[in-house]
């Protein structure tokens, strides 16, 4: 693939733009949504799905069936990981930890042809598996991570089993920076380092934001890179809106160590109009009267790709 570098980067950038556009439209339609997460993580998700991950073809239908039941009930809904390909250790797996990023994930699946765009019509509706905060019946969601800081440990368990058995498939995880406030995140990295899990790559969407506002005003986390290194990982910080930088960081991992890529991002990339909101109204965006149109107008995302 190295020889087609330009091809994949422009494809990834197109996917990233598409993620933002879809997330914006969903937020408008549903009078609120997890929009800034799509804005900050679009390039990370696009790079993972377009370039980095060796996922098998989706084993789930492009149009998901309605919710039928939780695991343990009968019939239970299909497992969300199926949209990321067959559950077989030869293939890579993707664990989205902060599942309030699910909107961005659904958009990614649509943009990478794993989910039909029609599926988004069911988004957030009663009885739909496309929950706003996804569970593991939601397309692409493998671990029910809505209570933050937990899914990375599950990914460590998977990577540990695969490492031990010598399986090919790599484990990719996206965590949010807010999750680094949870001690469990550090327990997880500590154990990943102890077991030398170089088949595990953790992308951190360092948008420096959380519910109450900028992290530095809520609970500062300092240098995540320095922390990850102190916890035994191979870590690097990159521009999280630069698809090549993300991909390069992922491919230059150190043998014998889990890889942590701190992706420095902004919560309003693509929508400069989001910047003016008050601190507590960024994490979950609800538009005031006329605001959505204003934000759309100030975005280049729509001109750029529409003919």
């Amino acid at each position, binding site marked *: 693939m190295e020889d087609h570098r330009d091809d994949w980067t422009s494809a990834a950038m197109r996917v990233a733009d598409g993620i933002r556009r879809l997330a914006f439209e969903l937020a408008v339609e549903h009078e*609120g949504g997890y929009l800034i997460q799509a804005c900050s993580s679009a390039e990370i998700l696009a790079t993972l799905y377009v370039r980095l991950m060796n996922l098998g073809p989706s084993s789930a239908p492009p149009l998901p069936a309605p*919710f039928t039941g*939780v*695991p*343990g*009930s009968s019939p239970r809904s299909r497992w969300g990981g199926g949209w990321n390909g067959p559950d077989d250790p030869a293939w890579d797996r993707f664990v989205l930890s902060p*599942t*309030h990023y699910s909107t961005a994930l659904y958009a990614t699946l649509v943009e990478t042809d794993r989910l039909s765009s029609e599926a988004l019509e069911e988004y957030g509706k*009663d*009885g739909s598996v496309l*929950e*706003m*905060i*996804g*569970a593991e*019946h939601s397309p692409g969601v493998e671990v*029910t*991570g*809505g*209570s*933050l*800081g937990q899914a990375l440990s599950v990914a460590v368990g998977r990577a540990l089993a695969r490492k031990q058995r010598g399986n090919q498939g790599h484990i990719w995880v996206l965590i949010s920076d*807010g*999750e680094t*406030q*949870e*001690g469990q995140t550090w327990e997880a990295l500590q154990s990943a380092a102890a077991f030398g899990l170089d088949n595990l790559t953790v992308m951190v969407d360092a948008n420096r934001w*959380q*519910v*109450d506002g900028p*992290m530095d*005003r*809520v*609970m500062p986390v300092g240098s995540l890179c320095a922390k990850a290194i102190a916890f035994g990982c191979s870590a690097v910080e990159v521009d999280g809106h630069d698809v090549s930088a993300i991909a390069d960081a992922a491919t230059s991992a150190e043998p014998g160590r889990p890889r942590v890529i701190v992706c420095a991002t902004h919560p309003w990339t693509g929508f400069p109009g989001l910047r003016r909101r008050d601190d*507590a109204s960024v994490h*979950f965006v*609800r538009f005031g009267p006329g605001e959505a149109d204003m934000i759309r107008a100030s975005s280049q995302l729509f001109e750029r790709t529409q003919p």
Partner: protein
Amino acid sequence: MATVGPTVTRPFAHAFAAYGRQNDRVVSVTNDLTRSSEADVFRTELPDRSYSLGMAEQNLVGVLSGLAREGLEPFYTSFAVFTTRRPYEQIALNVAYPNLPVRLMGFLPGITTPGGVTHQAIDDLALMRNLPNMTVLELADATDVETFWGTVEALPGPLYCRVPRGEVPRLFTEPFELDRVRSLTTGDDLTVVSIGAAVSHASGAIELLRSTGLGVTHLVVSTLKPFGDEEVPRSIERSGRVITVENHLVTGGLGTAVAEVIAELGLNATLRRVGIADTFTHGGSPDYLFGYYGIDTSGIIRAARELVDDPLDGLDLDGPEVRWQSPGVGGSSSEGL
């Protein structure tokens, strides 16, 4: 059910700030959900006594313990699930065991949150009720929220309290009283005991049941622990049939508390528990979810049919007549999820 006044907007937010203004020792601690759990008014008015601990609930609860040990009265307001689950052991050992005046407030309990299974505290009452020294409340309306502060102030030990959020209906005129149930209707054939967001659903079903001539006592519980009001066994003994209705698993909360009363006192009564029946849940609007899990008029009438001969026999429980219209009991809004 019949409300007794207009809904009140964010009654907790204002009452909490007022309580803080009157009590220097009160401090507010949040886990990055300050506005979402109505601690924002307190923070605006009393910024020096507001602590943002970030998303690290285990440490947060330890900090509450330390603040209380220094003579303060700390409140932790959050979603019920984050108030109780992640820091369960810390609450047990650092708050409940030392019997400290720490106030744990849980918003959007059970299936009143649209956040899906990870956000649905279907076990919080069970977790907190089993802890020695803990007082456990579930406030059902604006009057409860406005009037329970005297109880809080007088409590030397820890408190866990489910609180309704946002637009909150006014269901009661009488103020909150610790360990006192309210009787909304009386009758000798059936006792219905309801709590919190389930109260309105119970009222709707009871109205239908009473229309058939059935005598129904409706007791509303706001204090789950202690659970000593004698009106509960008295009414159960009289009717011999009881239905509990709760926005919680049917184990560990109200249904279990009533079962224990029946068994300990040897009451010759049969119980049906309406609530979440030993299953995990999923996301959706509260109306949809209360219907899906049968914590609604149909579910309650179905339970009644198991206890009483043919109540509302001809009624189609899935028909539109029995679809209870939600008055928006705390949490139907997805604001600041």
